[in-house]
């Protein structure tokens, strides 16, 4: 679960990290008021849960209260990558001499948290990592002990930070580590952390991504989740424990298991088809869940055919078949189905579907081939 910039920065501030003066606003009127309070010169930043918003025109500077209102009106009517902008953050403008990158994540190979810093922060940090990896300093942390003072000094020296800023940098890095730990974060990131012309270190941007598996023990974070800023169909799917990602094609896919779901998409593409979605119904799905999954797929007007690919382990194919029948009964449009059932109770499942006009397939290759031909307008 990704938090908005304003939410992330507010959590960082609670851990002693200096952030610019500013507030979040829902309307141009509010933006005007905040801009007045901040003296007119402000930066207006779209609060959306996707990357690259700056390059898409979602971050702009205003030199006066009037301009702030005007820009806010424009940004608040924008769509960024298909999602409407509903909120903007209005921050004071901070002039600075240096941009630092500071982030913490978990390293899969080392099985440890790692803190990363670079003196070449800003929007091109990933390019820096690729082109000049020597400009990126990484220190692995031992979870029980956390971040030591000597480690933050090592980072500060590694990014050529002037000595008088080592202490505040230490406080910021430790604050970030605390925020990371307490929120069960997958990522806690400040980019850029700037050396302001006042001589202070200030976090101009902030990002927190929380580990979804830990949300059961973070009701306070679930509460501030901004569902309006997420793809509605993905929110709907998640409610039912389904993992759904919208794609561009016309072949709907319902599969159990993420690996098998990805392989199914790969094979559809190899056959010349184009999947409309990724959908993993998980293990042991009930008929209800299957029916919901099919409803979600059918809601996409592009879908011309649906491929069901199930290899039952915990999942029982007869439950899947019952779900398919239930969804078909209530569906008002007739989208052809290609069904491949294998594994636990596959015969039972196929028997339940035998009276219907569904296409069946013995393997996922065959199913992908059939679905691709139907999507292309051929009979079978």
């Amino acid at each position, binding site marked *: 679960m990704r938090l908005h910039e304003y939410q992330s920065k507010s959590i960082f501030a609670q851990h002693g990290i200096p952030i610019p003066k500013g507030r979040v606003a829902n309307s141009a009127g509010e933006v005007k008021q905040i801009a007045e309070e901040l003296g007119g010169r402000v930066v207006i930043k779209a609060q959306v849960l996707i*990357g690259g918003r700056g390059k898409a025109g979602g971050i702009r500077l205003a030199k006066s209260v009037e301009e702030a209102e005007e820009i806010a009106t424009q940004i608040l009517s924008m769509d960024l990558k298909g999602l409407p902008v509903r909120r903007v953050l209005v921050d004071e403008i901070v002039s600075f001499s240096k941009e630092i*990158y500071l*982030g*913490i*994540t*978990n*390293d*899969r*190979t080392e*099985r*440890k*948290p*790692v803190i*990363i810093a670079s003196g070449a922060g800003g929007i091109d*940090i*990933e390019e820096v*990592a*690729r082109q000049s*990896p020597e400009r*990126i300093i*990484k220190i692995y942390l*031992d*979870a*029980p002990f956390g971040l030591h003072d000597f480690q933050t000094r090592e980072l500060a020296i590694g990014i050529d930070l002037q000595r008088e800023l080592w202490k505040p940098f230490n406080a910021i890095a430790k604050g970030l580590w605390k925020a990371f*730990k307490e929120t*069960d974060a*997958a*990522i806690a*990131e400040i*980019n850029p952390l700037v050396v302001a012309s006042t001589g202070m270190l200030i976090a101009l941007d902030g*990002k927190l*991504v929380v*580990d979804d*598996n*830990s949300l*059961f*023990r973070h009701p306070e974070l679930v509460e501030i989740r901004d569902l309006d800023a997420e793809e509605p169909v993905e929110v709907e799917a998640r409610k039912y424990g389904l993992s759904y*990602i919208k794609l561009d094609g016309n072949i709907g896919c319902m*599969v159990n*298991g*993420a*690996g*098998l779901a*990805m*392989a199914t*998409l*790969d*094979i559809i*593409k190899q056959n010349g088809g184009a999947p409309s979605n*990724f959908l993993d119904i998980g*293990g*042991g799905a009930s008929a209800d869940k299957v029916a919901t999954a099919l409803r979600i797929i059918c809601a996409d007007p592009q879908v011309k055919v649906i491929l069901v690919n199930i*290899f*039952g*382990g915990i999942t029982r194919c007869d439950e899947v078949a019952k779900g398919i029948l239930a969804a078909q009964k209530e569906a008002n449009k007739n989208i052809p189905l290609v069904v491949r059932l*294998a*594994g*636990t109770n596959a015969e039972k499942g196929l028997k339940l579907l035998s009276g219907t006009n569904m296409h069946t397939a013995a393997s*996922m*290759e065959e199913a992908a081939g059939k679905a691709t031909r139907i999507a292309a307008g051929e009979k079978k």
Partner: protein
Amino acid sequence: MSILINKETRVLVQGITGHEGSFHTGQMIAAGTNIVAGVTPGRGGEWVLDGKVPVFDTVKQAVEVAGVNTGVIFVPASAAADAILEQAEAGLELIICITEGIPVKDMIQTCAGLKKTQSRLIGPNCPGVISPGESLVGIIPAGIAVPGNIGIISRSGTLTYEVLNDLKLAGRGVSTCVGIGGDAIKGSDFVDLLRLFEDDPHTKSVILIGEIGGMDEEHAAEMIMNKFSKPVYAFVAGLSAPPGKRMGHAGAIIEGGSGGAKDKVEALLQAGVKVAGSPAKVIVMIQD
């Protein structure tokens, strides 16, 4: 012959009285697995599964009374990390954690704790391990696996079933099939298991089933190039996955911008691994 588990393996099921735990214990017994104990706190003293399996309150008690060397975990995500450490503290050699959805922070602490013990962890979020005809520890449907000389290591549950089933249909069998799990932080990776397969005289070749994310396949490729003598075949899922849904800069910086299926396939090919475009095509390659 096999790796990790065989006829002698004495298995404890943690969470044996739960819905999943109880159902799959029945399946494991039917597959010939030597289930010698179960653990559910507060239910010690009961006998379950038609009176065949004694239940203990703690793993330590089960080890003392029943003699256990391998544990399998079905408890909910919020309690699973604790269960792993309990089994390790009690001295189990092999711990297989089926539970999915364990918080990453818990797994990082657990892996740090495991370093101080002799235990090997497989999973979490995995289907378990099967040595067909000898033992099944986990949730793999036993009927789709037959004994043979091919080793399998997989990051995906249902893709594993797909490959086992295709092998069976092609008349080929498996020495041991290991689902290492799909989580970011896990107990064992491809390299750990390749080492065991290298030393297992009965395993003649190995199938790797990978997927996008992380660097497991790249590390496996490096190991295969230098220290692995048997033929390796692979399928990597996610070639058509959209790059969207990214986790911010930190992940990309750490992994140097890699983790995509294309890079993984490239690395494996360079190590001499035969990579197929689908699970079914992997099987065809082995027959060639």
